[in-house]
């Protein structure tokens, strides 16, 4: 079966991902619909990492020998690739972290300390009710620890940000607005540009969690009008077909330059005396210790791979699969989708409930048929609470997903209903 918008070479792309050939218990083929949780890795990413480990492994920057030069070059080339992937105005604005969570915490943690952007009593930080825990807890810690106040956008019944109170929320007291570009639970795509413009008008910093956006949407920071460009943007390697252990914080030089250091140690210094130290410029200032070298190299290969397939094409593919999935899912009796129903205005993660069966039990039965989905709160408890549910089942596709996998999901859901003797 073919759908309008699918990647033309889908069969070839699937061959790039060795895990997709795996069979599960009972010899069943793998139907991997948990890509919003973590994506699978193409051979080229794995091979690039192996080549680095087997032939070029050395510490970077500090090592002057040939292996050190090769390793440093590979690491810094990865920074160039990532900068290109998100259209960063400057390559030195790309900071490697261990994951998106660390990137977000880096910002929230350093804002507690003296500096031009320090957050203190009376200041406000604004987030939203649809954030991943990794974009909630850091701000709770910051505001609790500094005496600032945490506020948030609520959600409308159809899973959009409720912007009706935006003028009461974003005020001169607002120091930071941090929000997700694409929701990992509801799939909602948020109006980043509009909110950034509002926040910039009051002088607030804007932090965008692009963990779910980077895998699916073409991003071109340099092309954004300055007033609509976030100040900081985070995403994570393992969701963009890269390895674990690596994340990215992009930040404008102006902001990164005034944030105090986060982790102290090797590589982030200019000079160290026992009593006092001075710090290196960005990006090194925020990369203390031996960075995730082979992981950065793997991430470089990953974003190159996505670039070759084309982010526009991947985005279309996701939309096509998502539309097909929304349709298929809604054919299942008792199934309710949480979040927007228009595939052209949402990301590829679709959370749903099936009346009469708990998400765990759904996921378990699906798994027995080889269909891998996620069940639980997807690290978005407040968003679940907002919709009066405690947990949900989530399917999420990616560039390697085929329509027949959605068919397998729908069929397995029907089987689940019969297994639990619903109607």
């Amino acid at each position, binding site marked *: 079966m073919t759908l309008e918008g699918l990647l033309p070479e889908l069969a070839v792309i699937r061959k790039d991902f060795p895990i997709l050939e795996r069979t599960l*218990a009972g010899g*069943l083929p793998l139907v991997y619909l948990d890509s919003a949780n973590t994506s699978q890795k193409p051979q080229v990413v794995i091979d690039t990492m192996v080549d680095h480990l087997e032939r070029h492994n050395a510490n970077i920057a500090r090592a002057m020998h040939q292996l050190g030069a090769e390793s440093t070059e590979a690491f810094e080339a990865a920074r160039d690739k990532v900068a290109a992937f998100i259209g960063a105005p400057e390559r030195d604005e790309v900071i490697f972290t261990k994951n998106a969570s660390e990137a977000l915490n880096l910002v929230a943690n350093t804002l507690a300390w003296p500096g031009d952007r320090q957050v203190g009593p009376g200041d406000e930080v604004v987030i939203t009710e649809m954030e991943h825990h990794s974009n909630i807890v850091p701000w709770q810690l910051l505001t609790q620890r500094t005496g600032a106040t945490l506020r948030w956008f609520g959600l409308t019944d159809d899973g959009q940000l409720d912007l009706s109170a935006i003028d009461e929320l974003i005020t001169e007291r607002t120091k930071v607005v941090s929000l997700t570009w694409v929701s990992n639970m509801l799939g909602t795509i948020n109006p980043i540009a509009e909110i950034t413009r509002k926040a910039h008008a009051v002088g607030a910093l804007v932090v965008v969690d692009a963990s779910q956006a980077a895998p699916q949407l073409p991003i071109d920071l340099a092309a954004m009008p300055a007033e609509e460009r976030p100040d900081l943007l985070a995403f994570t390697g393992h969701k963009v077909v890269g390895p674990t252990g690596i994340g990215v914080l992009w930040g404008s030089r102006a902001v990164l330059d005034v944030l105090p250091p986060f982790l102290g140690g090797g590589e982030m210094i200019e000079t160290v005396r026992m009593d006092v130290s001075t710090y290196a410029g960005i990006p090194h200032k925020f990369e203390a210790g031996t960075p995730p070298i082979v992981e950065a190299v793997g991430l470089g290969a990953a974003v190159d791979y996505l670039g070759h397939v084309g982010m526009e094409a991947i985005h279309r593919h996701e939309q096509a699969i998502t539309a097909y999935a929304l349709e298929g899912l809604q054919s299942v009796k008792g199934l309710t989708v949480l979040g927007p129903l228009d595939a052209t205005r949402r990301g590829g993660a679709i959370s749903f409930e099936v009346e009469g069966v708990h*998400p*765990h039990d759904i996921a*378990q*039965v699906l798994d*027995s048929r080889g269909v891998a989905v996620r069940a*639980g709160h997807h690290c978005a408890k407040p968003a*679940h609470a907002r919709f009066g549910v*405690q947990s949900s089942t989530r399917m999420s596709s990616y560039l390697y997903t085929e329509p027949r996998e959605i068919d397998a999901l729908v069929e397995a859901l029907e089987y689940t209903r019969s297994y639990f003797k619903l109607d």
Partner: protein
Amino acid sequence: MSTANGQDLDALYQEIILDHYKNPHGKGLRGDADAAGTAEVHHVNPTCGDEVTLRVHLADGVVDDVSYDAVGCSISQASASVLHDLVVGKGVDEAMAIHQEFLTLMQGKGAIEPDEEVLEDGIAFAGVARFPARVKCALLSWMAWKDATARVTGAATGEGDKA
């Protein structure tokens, strides 16, 4: 092949479990949380969000009542129901021994033969032990019970004795 998996699934979802799930025994909070001999705890399974609020009332060294409010999957609901059946009316020491037996079964990776004398309907959970991700579901209310009971008896408990 799908039979092989069908069987696996049936090992997990035994009739007894589904029955307890549909008709949980002892569900609902009873008594007064502040009464003497009573303790109430709230436990969460952080990865999936399943929750239980569980209240224990001990009288004269006997488990007088275990009442609970819980949201969660079939396994966690059914195990709360079985817990209620197994410990209410038993001496605290005997109930603790049953708890230990159930814990051992759950941590046995499917290699342990359950003792029906002790565990009664609880033997239906033998299959759960083969699904590591679900063991936590089965243990949620049991851990809450142990915690609450220890609070009444004043014994030490908590994370420390997990190891």
